[in-house]
């Protein structure tokens, strides 16, 4: 019996991710791929129902999206690839085989960089990205939400034939945290590429994990495939659970069996499946000749690939943005594009970054809309920022103006509504106002002049008074300068 106390266990994890590729129609037929709010079995045809005699015809957009996703994951696009029939019986699979590229994929040999648990950069290698069709959806009448024990199941084939990319990593992941970071980064990149919306709530992204552990005494557990994780949290919990379970088995001198286990999210456990996944077999899909992509097409698609989030964040930092701001802005391509449009329209990058990260994202969050749906367009925000820079609006007032813009007002209307006069406060008026304020507060001036205001609090106080008088239309820096110069003149 090994001494349990001294044993340590090293997890070895590979992740398989299924994402829905973003297209208008299904992968092998012309049924609409958008069925979110439609009746069950309303998007079906002879092909996606596997009717006798029907034949698949490959959707060009699926190939293109697959290439884009592959490029976003630093994969090499393969010039000639094949489709196979992966055979297993299941009622959500109309032909009882799935058409899949399997291990002769459209894209291969990629990688993503994440931070390991010690905070050091680490590459997760991606074995391949292959194209395949999705199955229908099973609903069941069991009370606890599990298939097991259900008296009857119901099949909806609307999802059958939706285009999927399966992305298979090498076993380079070492912890549940790394797994989550990997899938988060991957999701961000495929969304960036426009290849997938990867909306987890809509089931557009699903995870399986191959988990094994190595014991410090040299023993290895066999590889266990854990299936059925539909959220980052489920992926994290399932991996944590499996590492613990397998480590315990090894610690007790047992053997970890090669098997497929299903994650039960409600119970927080994995259970062995009776289906022998590794038993599934393949023949070449005789109805689909080899998929050939020309070098020209590959280059054309490469040209469509936008700058990726890491590269964007790096560039934003070079523009002077903080690491946090750069990261937040680059997280979603829509936000990044909004920010970049702002800068392109002449806004100061630092101020634009700040505005987008705070006001714009807050509005997006409050209104629960996409940044592209916001009433304030980037060029308007840029103009607002320009007016702040030119001293025509204070930051405080600009925020009021921004609220007006969110309601759909034009910039001029919003400015008017906020009460700010166009053009700020002219220098003479400001000088008079400063003089009056100083005269009205002799004791404060006294303290300043006696040198007690080491932290500048009193000056700030006066500044606030002046700003209030101008209804926020003056530029704070100009006000501060005017006050200092007026006090200087008193000396």
């Amino acid at each position, binding site marked *: 019996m090994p001494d349990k106390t001294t044993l340590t266990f090293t997890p070895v994890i590979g992740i398989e991710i299924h994402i829905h590729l973003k297209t208008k129609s299904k992968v092998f037929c012309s049924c609409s791929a958008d069925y979110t709010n439609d009746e069950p079995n309303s998007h079906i045809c002879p092909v996606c129902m596997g*009717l006798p005699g029907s034949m698949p015809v490959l959707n060009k957009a699926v190939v293109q999206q697959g290439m884009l996703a592959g490029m976003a994951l630093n994969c090499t696009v393969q010039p000639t690839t094949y489709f196979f029939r992966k055979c297993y019986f299941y009622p959500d699979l109309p032909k009882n085989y799935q058409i899949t590229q399997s291990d002769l994929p459209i894209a291969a040999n990629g990688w993503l960089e994440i931070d390991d648990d010690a905070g050091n950069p680490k590459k997760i290698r991606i074995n391949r990205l292959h194209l395949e069709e999705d199955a229908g959806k099973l609903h069941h009448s069991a009370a606890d939400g599990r298939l097991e024990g259900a008296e009857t199941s119901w099949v909806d084939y609307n999802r059958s034939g939706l285009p999927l990319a399966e992305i298979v990593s090498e076993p380079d992941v070492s912890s549940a945290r790394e797994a989550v970071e990997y899938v988060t980064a991957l999701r961000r990149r495929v969304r960036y590429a426009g290849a997938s919306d990867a909306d987890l709530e809509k089931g557009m992204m699903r995870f399986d994990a191959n988990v094994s552990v190595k014991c410090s005494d040299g023993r290895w557990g066999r590889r266990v495939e854990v299936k059925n994780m539909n959220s980052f949290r489920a992926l994290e919990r399932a991996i944590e659970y499996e590492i613990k379970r397998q480590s315990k088995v090894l610690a007790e001198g047992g053997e970890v069996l090669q098997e497929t286990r299903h994650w039960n999210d409600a119970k927080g456990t994995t259970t062995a499946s009776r289906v022998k996944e590794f038993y599934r077999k393949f023949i070449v899909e005789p109805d689909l000749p080899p998929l050939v992509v020309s070098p020209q097409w590959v280059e054309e698609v490469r040209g469509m690939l936008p700058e990726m989030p890491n590269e964007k964040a790096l560039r934003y930092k070079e523009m002077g943005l903080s690491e946090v701001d750069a990261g937040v802005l680059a997280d979603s391509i829509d936000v990044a594009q909004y920010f970049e449009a702002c800068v392109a329209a002449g806004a100061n990058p630092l101020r634009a970054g700040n505005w987008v990260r705070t006001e714009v994202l807050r509005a997006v969050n409050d209104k629960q809309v996409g940044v592209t749906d916001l009433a304030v367009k980037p060029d308007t925000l840029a103009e607002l920022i320009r007016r702040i820079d030119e001293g025509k609006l204070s930051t405080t007032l600009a925020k009021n103006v921004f609220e007006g813009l969110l309601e759909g007002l034009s910039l001029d209307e919003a400015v008017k509504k906020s009460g700010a006069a166009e053009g700020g406060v002219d220098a003479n008026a400001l000088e008079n106002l400063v003089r009056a304020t100083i005269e009205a507060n002799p004791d404060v001036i006294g303290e300043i002049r006696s040198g007690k205001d080491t932290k500048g609090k009193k000056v700030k106080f006066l500044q606030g008074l002046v700003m209030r008088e101008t209804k926020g239309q003056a530029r704070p820096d100009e006000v501060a300068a005017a006050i200092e110069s007026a006090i200087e003149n008193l000396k």
Partner: protein
Amino acid sequence: MMELYELGVREIVEGIREKRFSALEVFDECLGRALACEGKVSALITATADTGRAHARQIDGYVAKGEPLGPLAGVPVILKDNICTHGIRTTAGSRILGRWAPPYSATVWDLLSSAGAVLLGKSNMDEFAMGNTCGTSAFGPTANPWDVSRVPGGSSGGSAASVAAGYVPFALGSDTGGSIRQPASYCGIFGLKPTYGLVSRYGLIAYGSSLDQIGPFTRSVEDMELIMHVLARHDPKDSTSVDKSEIDFTRRESKGEKPLKGKRVALVKEFQDFTLDPPIADAIKRLIRIFEEMGAEIAQVSLPTVARYAVACYYAIAASEAHTNLARFDGVRYGYTVTTAAGLRDMFEEVRSKGFGAEVKSRIIAGTCLTEPVRSEEYYVAATRVRTLIAEEFRKAFENVDCILQPVTPSLPGKIGESDEDAMKGYESDLYTLPVNMAGLPGFSFCTGYSDSGLPVGLQLVGPRWSDKNLLNMGFELEKVLGAPKIARGGN
């Protein structure tokens, strides 16, 4: 005076155009002929009298109004029952499809019906096209109209028998390993297995998808050209369909006294060691003389890999593809089903065990076995490699010759109910037909005449890919010498 049912495609089309008879008259005469023979021949699974008559009346309406007519306007046709016909029961000769009426039509039926052809029925076939006698059909056997105690061949036996007996001037079948050419030969008519990719497979209930091809049965080569002119169309719904619109089946160069001068017709060296029924061996000798008289040169090609490995290779690939094509029949979405099963697995097993016949089950088991992960490389993948050798051997052979003349079968049709104890022996008899499918080649089966016992004796021409028209052109010349196929008595 000829009966209307004895007319060919061209004669019917012209007669209707010239208002010598109506489409409905033709249809009713053909239907009458079919009903007169069906008791003995049983070529049909479904007769489509009502929809066919309605369609014929519609054609007559066009004629009356002088509207433009399609190239096959008013020609009755029978389709093998693995070709999907919208709203009309399509069974593939199996119980498992139940009373399935497809919600869509095969491309070939779309093409024929828009050309004006009128459906008379769906023909009997070996279940899922697996067989060469029509004896594995769940609907019982079909008889050879030349001798109703004998098989018509298969799997497209119903289509062949119906054309031979005069139900219709043409019918469609499908050929995966000889299923058009062999019954055409047994029934004494013309049958063409086109080059793979020339005719759309969309809507053909698949057996071996990389081998299957739809083709016509006719009683004249000219009719076959008319049908191929309609069928040989690129179909975007079939990803293996090829655009060969440059082939014009309706044009034929005028020929002189030696119409095949310059053509090289080959015999296969290895096949000469195999035993043939005397009438078939005699037919080959006779054809060699005829070819020489028409100016062709007789050559020899060697196909050793074909001769030794084609049968094994064919059955390995066909079974491997078939077991996946037939996986979809599980009772959930369409066809035969059971409602009493306790669980899903029970339901699948009950539906499939009761729904499929013995031969189909055997081949599903074979396909499952050969593609098991532990055996796949050794058998399934090996078969695909052997197939490369076979295709390559044919390619080389056709560098020097225009076509190959060879038997369709080693023997004349056998008695209904006779079968080999060892199925593999039966499979060996397909040696002359199935290599053609392995390489995707066209094969043209024609009637050379009749044996002393009154059975038709057929042979076939095999050419390189896309030589379909050349084969038909040779067939046209042969038909002039051999005479057109006769209509069989059909048990009457």
